[in-house]
């Protein structure tokens, strides 16, 4: 459904040159979900904008829904749905009016657009708010309306650019449910996110993006194995106990020690049971601890493992909504 080869996009200004895309290759098979995972400015949004015909790449070629995104742009638009990072809805129209308008612009007849709008408003739990102007909607409701707008033309291929960024935890779970339903119904989906947890939850396969390149691909489990799975973190009360604590809980010596924060990190193949043992062990030896916990690998851990550097945000990118002439658009 999606194929991309060697996509390059460079933003030049007098002062600098930002390679937002530096040779991105992708393929997404029909009926699968690909999660593009990366920090702000990595090139996620730029990739989505190229694949959805909004932006011309400087080099490389791409097809969406089997059609060339440059040559057959208008045909591609008929087959895709896009929900961007910023809920792109008309705040002065009601939810129902928004969906009717986007339906009409998808070339549905007025009646079909009306019917489809009602159906989506019900499905996304927006029935009650349907005839209120969108200005009065909460963040979660706006995102749901935006996603409904992306689905109005019953697209074969759906792009979701950071669908939950900025949402509170409850709205995020609601959004996940809505997306999962789409996936169950067989939608082909490309989703970008900054959260490993989200990619894990929704995607069949994850591609990690950094500085305009795909640096790793695999299922969530494969990536986590590369990172080393869960880990246990202990913060000791007394800095002088660090070495001793490390010997006690990581006899093989594989512990990361941060002197400054008095933090000790070890791999935790044994999960919660191992955590109990660690706590008991330290207790027996009378080593006082300030904090202890089991931590799942985060995007930072993935980046550290894959690149040797932490996930860093490229300044000036991604946070620019629909940036067109501004430099450093990436993500």
């Amino acid at each position, binding site marked *: 459904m999606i194929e991309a080869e060697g996509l390059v996009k460079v933003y030049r200004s007098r002062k600098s040159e930002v390679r937002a895309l530096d040779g991105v290759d992708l393929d997404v098979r029909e009926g699968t979900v690909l999660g593009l995972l990366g920090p702000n400015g990595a090139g996620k949004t730029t990739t989505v904008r190229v694949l959805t015909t909004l932006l011309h790449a400087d080099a490389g070629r791409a097809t969406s829904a089997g059609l060339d995104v440059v040559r057959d742009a208008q045909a591609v638009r008929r087959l895709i749905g896009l929900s961007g990072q910023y809920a792109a809805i008309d705040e002065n129209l009601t939810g129902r009016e928004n969906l009717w308008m*986007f339906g*009409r612009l998808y070339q549905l007849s007025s009646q079909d657009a009306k019917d489809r709008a009602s159906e989506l408003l019900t499905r996304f739990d927006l029935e009650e708010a349907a005839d209120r102007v969108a200005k009065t909607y909460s963040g979660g409701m706006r995102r749901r309306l935006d996603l409904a707008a992306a689905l109005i*033309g019953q697209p074969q291929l759906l792009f979701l650019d950071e669908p939950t960024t900025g949402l509170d935890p409850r709205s995020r779970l609601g959004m996940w449910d809505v997306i999962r339903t789409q996936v169950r119904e067989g939608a082909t989906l490309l989703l970008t996110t900054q959260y490993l947890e989200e990619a894990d939850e929704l995607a069949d396969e994850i591609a990690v993006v950094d500085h305009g390149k795909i640096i790793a691909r695999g299922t969530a489990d494969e990536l986590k194995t590369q990172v080393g799975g869960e880990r246990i973190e202990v913060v000791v009360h007394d800095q002088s106990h660090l070495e001793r604590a490390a010997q006690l809980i990581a006899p093989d010596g594989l512990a990361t020690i941060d002197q400054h924060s008095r933090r000790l990190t070890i791999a935790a193949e044994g999960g919660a049971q191992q955590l109990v043992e660690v706590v008991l062990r330290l207790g027996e030896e009378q080593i006082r601890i300030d904090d202890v916990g089991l931590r799942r690998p985060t995007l930072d851990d993935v980046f550290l493992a894959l690149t040797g550097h932490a996930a860093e945000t490229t300044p000036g990118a991604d946070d620019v909504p629909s940036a067109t002439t501004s430099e450093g658009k990436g993500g």
Partner: protein
Amino acid sequence: MSGLRIAVADGIVISWRNLKRVPRIPELAIFAILQSIMFVLLFAFVFGGAIPLPGGGSYTEFLMPGIFVQTLAFASVTTAIAVADDMTKGLIDRFRSLPMARSAVLSGRTFADIVYNVGLLIVLMLTGLVVGWRVHSSFAEFMYGFLLLLFFTYAMAWIGVYLGLAVQTVEVAQQLGFLVIFPITFLSNAFVPIETLPAPLQPIAEWNPVSALTGATRELFGNPNPYASDSFPGEHPIFMSVVWTIALLAVFMPLAIRKYRAIDR
């Protein structure tokens, strides 16, 4: 459906969407009208007495065509703000991702502006009638003047679209109103006869498109229109306003379309 029918149908949907804004944010229209009424009252009753018209005539009747043109010139700022707002909110991107006619976003926008400004103009004319402005010409001449104003509005809408796409932020678009439109409307015959201006400024005011439109409107509505003798634009305001409007359209329409197309670069 043929390409043209899609273009028209989509343009109408976009116009509808832009016009919905008016009842949904009534403050916008109300402030635009209040601002113009404030100018009417200020000039007609505060400064008016101190501004003698060469050749005589009612200052209020002299003033109203100036107010019409000034209001329509300011409407381009409203357009620029709305376009910049659509850019920052991602709506333009959304439209561009849809299988709609590419022309519709701009054609729908500028058509909606004409409809909105017809409404604005009618309210202002009624206000004018209340403060003593009258039309002394034939109905045909009045309609000619009205259409010239609408044609000018259309050109101003394209300027607004271009500025909105170029500046991309609502705040900058707002500032433009004061920095560009204010001096242009004041350096004209809209509020004072040109011969009362300092000599070096007179040629600028003579050739100002706002002066041409104001002069043409006065002529066609049968309102006093004093102009400096032997000035070509002063003597041919109708011709000059048509030329100016075509020239503005010829420059800003392609600029706006090119800017819109270049969004994908």
